[in-house]
């Protein structure tokens, strides 16, 4: 069975590296994108099984990218975990309106990230 692939999206190289390191303990392949627009492109070309995406990014925000993924037949059902700076109701509600599957808050807790990823993908390979 092929390993599951995760697309990590964040404009911060620090956050990208941190999330990649946290996920490196698990049997997933990881690809990255630096903003929402690149995320949409990579979702179509890389065929990930899950997108873990920051909200505040240049060119296209996480909310906009999530909505764009939902509008495309090829990525309509692709699970999206949004990484929000603020976990308050309004922000979370906006994420779900954009079509996200779930969300986590910054600073990302390793155990929480892995639990949510496993919840969507299973244990991996």
């Amino acid at each position, binding site marked *: 069975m092929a390993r599951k692939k995760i697309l990590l999206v964040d404009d*911060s*190289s*620090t*956050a990208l*590296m*941190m999330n990649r*390191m*946290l996920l490196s*303990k698990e049997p997933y392949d990881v690809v990255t994108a630096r903003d929402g627009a690149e995320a949409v492109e990579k979702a179509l070309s890389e065929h990930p099984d899950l997108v873990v995406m920051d909200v505040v990014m240049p060119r296209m925000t996480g909310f906009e990218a999530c909505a764009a993924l939902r509008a495309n037949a090829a990525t309509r059902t692709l699970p999206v975990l949004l990484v929000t*700076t*603020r*976990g*308050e109701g309004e922000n979370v509600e906006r994420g779900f309106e954009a079509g996200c599957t779930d969300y986590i*808050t*910054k*600073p990302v807790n*390793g*155990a929480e990230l892995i639990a949510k990823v496993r919840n969507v993908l299973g244990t991996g390979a």
Partner: protein
Amino acid sequence: MTAEAATGRAPRDPAAEAETLRVQLASLRQERERLSAELGGLRDELTRHRSVATQLQDQLDAIARENEALMQRQAEIDEQQNSMANLYVASFSLHASVDREAVLAGIQEIVANLIGCEEMALLQRSDTRLAVTTFFGLDPAPLQAVDPTRGVLGQCLRGGSTWVRGRDEAPATPEPWEAGLTACIPLLVDGNATGALALFRLLPQKCGAYSSLDHEMFDFLASRAGVALLCADLCRRSA
């Protein structure tokens, strides 16, 4: 007419009947002895089974305790790994470049993404005063004329140690601008404070408290951020 005649049965021979009863009694006694011996065996077996059950229960309890200890150890290892990952990523961000702006951006990313603080100012010594060299989430104006000898900042710069609200005592006369201060981290170069990182409001999900990972990050920033900035300054001057 006798009773036997009335019922049509043959008259009983008391001696034969006694003999029959004696034989039956002997047989019952034998049966009782056999059953008694069997009961003894069953009791012994029950005792053995109970002993085995106790042993198994003890083993089960020991395994449960071991399992709990292993889970605890696993949690500790996970925390250590998270801490190592945090410090590795922070170190990478801080030392990825000798360009001053990149170093400042690295410090901002560490504070925002790894610590989870949404208001920060970095103050560096410039002659006899401190100047705000980078910030986010706040108005830097009140910080432009701070007295580096007073309040939490003064204590932090003199002692060269990090101050964290709730963990460390504040000086008797904190400065007005320090009201919202949650941590003050000196930027040390060879033990001398060349400036300080002032952290204010935390993200709401942190519930107003820094974690043990954050404290490790403060130690890292205190010992490395000043050196990284000094290296960037020296590189710029020598270019």
